[in-house]
């Protein structure tokens, strides 16, 4: 484990445990903590169980439960301590296990739907992630990237600036006119992050083209609001994430569109749609939606038609967009219009099998490493070891995903999250499958026929 060699500040760790566990108890968490029957049904859903049973949701979340029991249950405070049922703090070894566990969970939420008691182990593991962050036990490479986002200094990096500006000029070329930038009161604010600008600039250009074709009143951002805001949430940095969300919220409010439209259906979707407003306790005037939601709405309003493909296609439900965000129906409206041979993956909807998000990391390891190098962030041996350790789950979970794709003989796997595309793409290559994985807009954009009013 990457942190094994680093010095752990035990005092900071204990303080972090107290802060997180005393600070975040509510009735939902209490239910998750005390109502598990240890039936292990959740094993079936977790993308990390094929790597080891130690990574089964209940086993990972048990660390949280032990810390909870000491603080919140009579049993835990008394005999629980003597029979190993509860812990006040963690030993160094236990802390290392905890860090290993948190990077073997994508907070995908699949365990909750399969658990007969509807327990969200991901939520309990997330508490451990916050502890690890506060105790300085987050892989440095992620921390450096997140810090760059929080400080706002990402915009001083030429690589990012150039990529963003080149995206704007590509959009300009594609629509044949100036790109509307930061225009207040537009119907649609086309929101995207630097990460997406790097991962799939062509998809973003196509989205702009669709908006232009449909004659929508839209606007784009002259500057990105972060690398992939709020990246802090993924590494357990709630406070850092709140700072970034404040920036995002101010911008959204300033532009005040009807819809803030995201092309990414990863963690940014539930974060910007729900968490941001829940954190600040604000009821915005705009609505945060995924591009598929707006397109499905416009399609159903007959603003355009879709020329269908003649091949078997399938939709991979990104965990955060679907399970955490609640968007299942809209992509299916579009998928069914895109091909009569649309087939569901054996695991879909609330049971969609997580791509394992680059092995529990924030992306496929090689991509994270390359990004760090480009940004001038040094990649230490520990970082390297950590990134390598995320590869095994990616390969194991990828096998299940690829088998499912092969089973329905899908030619194209379409989805709506950059990391799903990357992870599934990795697995398809690794297992030499013949399918392709794309953002839905990638295929859709070329098949839209606008209905003239």
């Amino acid at each position, binding site marked *: 484990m990457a942190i094994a060699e680093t010095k752990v500040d035990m005092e900071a760790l204990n303080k972090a445990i107290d802060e997180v566990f005393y600070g975040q*108890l*509510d*009735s*939902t*968490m*209490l*239910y998750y903590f*005390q*109502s*598990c*029957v*240890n*039936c*292990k*049904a959740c*094993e*079936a*859903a977790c993308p990390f169980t094929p790597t080891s*049973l*130690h990574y*089964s949701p*209940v*086993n990972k979340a*048990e660390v949280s439960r032990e810390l909870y029991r000491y603080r919140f249950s009579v*049993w835990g405070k008394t005999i*629980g301590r003597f*029979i190993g*049922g509860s812990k006040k703090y963690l030993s160094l070894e236990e802390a290392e296990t905890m860090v290993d566990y948190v990077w073997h969970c994508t907070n995908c939420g699949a365990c*909750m*739907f*399969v*658990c*007969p*008691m*509807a*327990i969200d182990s991901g939520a309990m593991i997330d508490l451990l992630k916050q502890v690890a962050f506060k105790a300085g036990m987050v892989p440095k490479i992620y921390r450096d990237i997140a810090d760059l986002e929080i400080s706002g200094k990402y915009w001083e990096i030429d690589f990012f600036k150039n990529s963003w500006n080149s995206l704007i000029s590509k959009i300009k070329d594609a629509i044949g006119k100036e790109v509307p930038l930061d225009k207040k009161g537009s119907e649609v604010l086309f929101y995207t992050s630097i990460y997406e600008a790097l991962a799939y600039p062509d998809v973003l250009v196509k989205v702009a083209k669709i908006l232009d074709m449909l004659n929508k009143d839209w606007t784009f951002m002259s500057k990105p609001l972060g690398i992939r805001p709020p990246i802090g949430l993924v590494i357990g940095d709630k406070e850092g994430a709140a700072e970034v969300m404040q920036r995002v919220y101010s911008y959204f409010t300033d532009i005040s569109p009807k*819809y803030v439209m995201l092309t990414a259906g990863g963690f940014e979707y539930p974060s910007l*749609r*729900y968490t941001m*407003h*829940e954190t600040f*306790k*604000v*009821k*915005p005037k705009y*609505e945060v*939606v995924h591009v598929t*939601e*707006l397109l*499905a*709405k416009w399609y*159903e309003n007959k603003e355009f038609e879709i020329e269908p493909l003649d091949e078997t296609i399938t939709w991979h439900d990104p965990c955060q967009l679907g*399970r955490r965000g*609640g*968007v299942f*129906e*809209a992509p299916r*409206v579009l998928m069914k219009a895109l091909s009569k041979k649309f087939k569901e993956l054996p695991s879909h909807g*609330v*049971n969609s099998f997580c791509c394992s998000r680059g092995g529990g990391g924030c992306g496929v390891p090689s991509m994270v490493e390359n990004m760090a190098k480009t940004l001038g962030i040094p990649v230490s041996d520990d970082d390297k070891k950590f990134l390598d350790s995320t590869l095994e789950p990616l390969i194991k979970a990828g096998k299940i995903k690829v088998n499912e794709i092969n089973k329905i003989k899908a030619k194209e796997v379409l989805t709506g999250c950059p990391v799903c595309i990357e992870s599934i793409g990795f697995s398809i290559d690794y297992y030499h499958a013949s399918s392709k994985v794309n953002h839905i807009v990638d295929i859709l954009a070329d098949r839209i026929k606008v209905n003239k009013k």
Partner: protein
Amino acid sequence: MQLPFGDYLVGNSLYPLALDLFIPTIVFFFFGASYRVFRYFAVYKKPFIPYATSVMRETSSTEKVKKLVDTFANSSKVGMKRKPVTTAAGLLMHLSLIVIIFLLAQHMVFWAYYIPPYKILFPFAIPESSADGALAFTLATSPYTSTSYPFVHDIWGPLTIILNGQYITYILMILLGIYLGHKFHALAEGLTLRSGDWWFFLLLYIDIILGFLATSHIPNSVVYYDDLLGAHIIVAEVLIATLPFTRGFHMFEFYLGKVREWYFMTYRRGEK
């Protein structure tokens, strides 16, 4: 000592003690359950809802009800696909337990004594053993002692030859044995196990064995019978009294968790 049930003298056995302890058990249970429920209220925070959506989320009422059923069924559906053996064992174990606890004729008399309206369910009573079931069906005998509820006239007919306490108990003992194996496997793998799980599980297993021995008259003597039956009830009482502090409480919370999941994932997500 005289028992509340008729003139049957039981002497100095565990049986009267067990009966005397039933009401205190229930009081203890309610105390524990209230504590557990109170804690939820004590830490309750009203969820903040930023906004309802206007885009593509309308769910019809029929769809909402369908999703409620799906919410409850999903665990078994996925389990049957990915972990068929343990899921099937789990389902069958729960089903057998429910049947035994609530429909075994002897248990029904017990429940009806404390909760009289329970009598409505008497026609569903299942007999103690396969032989009883066969006799009731082939000879259609009436009980020798006068009773206003002739259990032999149940609605199961020939099914009672397999649907009876004896066979279901065999199944239960095997299934709980599999569970025990599951636990030892977890222990060997170094996975976490909790004492609360063991406590509930072992009490349940012991209780089933005691009940089985008592009804089968092993060993065959009235004194032993009374002691075994008494022990069976006492173990059940310990189990009930400690229920709010063990995994056993899932028999109540199961509904809470699933309805909550449905409410947040389907009902509220679908609101406009």
